């Protein structure tokens, strides 16, 4: 790890690695390029959000259609396999539909949305764009429980009902949304929750439910809701021996933000996560100095779709 990065990494106020030594990983190949397309602006204010997105959080701003066009063009030389669009809530960005239409001329695209603000004419346009493209457009819809009673205390009043209306809209246009839920229940209950979710989705017309569970990331708002990472929740050099580091998103992804390129979509609040302005500049080793790195190590490729998870 470089001296400057190590200094920056100590900005992780929740305790740096006790041994002061932490492993670094290279960017092995830029397979996925993420766009923080709505910055940290969201119409919801989920109490577990790892980057504390809200209607008032302007730490990261929107990306314009021209920003995205320039980055897509820049990415071609790196042989990027697919593109992800996240926020905040991407569909707060007024350019979101043309951005996705443009992205689909370059490669597969996935948008991570809470589906509460979707409009029928947008989805119709996007379905037409997907039909014209070689590539797939995936919608990942964040809902944190199969009932309003489980979801709404986390994501806000009536958010379950509004998200399910968005799911219905997607299904009506022939999309098969991937429902992603943060595990705000005990891990042992996964199968029960998934079963309930499948049943709920069927009632809303989603007869082929695709479900993905995400682990909690104990940073941002979640650190306030429950607890942050402990001082030993860190990756040690010993843990990296015989570990396939392709399980870590930072070995195969980068994120475009309006403040430069970040190492992954999770660590945006860490100054050390910003790696410069050009993709080439961002292609350097990254120190796994953060508690969230430990979660990524435990669960592996938590941000990517099941179709592109690195497996071995």
């Amino acid at each position, binding site marked *: 790890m470089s001296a400057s990065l190590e200094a920056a990494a100590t900005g992780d106020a929740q305790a740096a690695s006790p041994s002061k030594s932490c492993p670094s990983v290279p960017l092995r*190949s830029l*397979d996925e390029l993420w766009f923080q397309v709505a910055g940290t602006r969201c119409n919801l204010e989920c109490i577990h959000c790892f980057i504390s997105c809200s209607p008032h959080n302007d730490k990261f701003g929107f990306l314009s259609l021209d920003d995205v066009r320039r980055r897509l063009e820049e*990415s*071609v030389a*790196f*042989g*990027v*396999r*697919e593109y992800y669009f996240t926020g905040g809530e991407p569909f707060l960005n007024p350019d979101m539909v043309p951005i996705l239409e443009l992205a689909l001329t*370059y*490669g*597969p695209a996935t948008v991570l949305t809470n589906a509460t603000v979707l409009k029928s004419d947008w989805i119709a346009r996007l379905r037409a764009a*997907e039909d014209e493209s*070689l*590539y*797939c*457009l*995936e919608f990942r819809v964040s809902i944190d429980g199969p009932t309003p009673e489980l979801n709404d205390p986390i994501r806000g009043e009536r958010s379950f009902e509004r998200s399910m209306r968005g799911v219905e809209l997607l299904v009506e246009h*022939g*999309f*098969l949304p*991937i429902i992603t839920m943060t595990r705000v229940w005990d891990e042992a209950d996964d*199968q029960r929750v998934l079963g309930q979710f499948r049943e709920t989705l069927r009632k809303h017309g989603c007869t*082929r439910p*695709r479900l*993905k569970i995400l682990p909690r990331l104990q940073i941002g708002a979640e650190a306030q809701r429950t607890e942050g990472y402990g001082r030993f929740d860190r990756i040690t050099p010993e843990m990296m021996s015989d570990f396939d580091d392709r399980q870590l998103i930072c070995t195969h992804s980068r994120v475009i933000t309006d403040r430069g390129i970040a190492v992954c979509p999770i660590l945006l609040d860490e100054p050390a996560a910003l790696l410069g302005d050009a993709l080439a500049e961002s292609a350097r080793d990254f120190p796994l100095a953060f508690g969230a790195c430990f979660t990524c190590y435990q669960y592996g490729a938590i941000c990517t*779709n*099941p*179709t*592109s*998870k*690195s*497996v*071995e």
Partner: protein
Amino acid sequence: MRIAFFGGIYNNYLALEAAIADAHSRGAQKLYCLGDLGAFGPHPDRVFPLLYQHEIETVQGNYDNSIGNNLQDCQCGYTDPHDNHFAQISYDYTYANTSPANRDWMRSLSSEIRFEIDGLRFLLCHGSPRQTNEFLWESATSTAFLERLANDQQADVILGTHTGIHWQRELSGGRRFINVGVLGRPENDGMTNVWYTIVDVGRQDAASGQPTPQLSVEFVPLRYDHERLAAEMRYEGLPDEFVETVLTGWWTTCLEVLPGKERRSGRF
């Protein structure tokens, strides 16, 4: 030169037998298999004599790596417990019914085969050239990514299988990526046939007077005795869900890894 490429066999020795006969009848001079000999179907050991007898050079798939090295699962990397449940039934059956000699042979296979014909550099792999079990779906793989693979691997024609659905993409400089499909099960399109691929390579005189390599690709739909396969699968006690796929052409399991576009075209 005409070459036939067979993708995942998945124990479907009846389709392999039909494919060999079909390829020979079409004048194929060389036959290759891109791996995953086991899984899904009945009687694993009936595949190997056909490969040996017809001198079919074979790439090691993730399944072959697992069975050959006595691993606990197929390394397909499914993320859904329902998919993993069926994958494990299939794996345990295949492992138990594959002879030690055939396991040894699978262990000895290489993860890639390279050759050159008329100036075209061929690279045969299972999933992708960089990772045996990487799924390269048509709708989830950018052209820029395939260009990178071709550059990195210094190959003009890359052939793979693993996903179970054939497709191809033309790349710059006359290069090509080809997913040859699979013989093991139908393509989730409501049809009971399976697919293999024939490639013709030759040279054509160009205006400059220099002959240039020419490549043409034909995806071949292959009918075989799928009802007999289904009967044998039932007799062997394999899951009804697998038998249904053979008889209807629709995939019933291991669906979670499909991108939305490929999933949408299926029934489940």
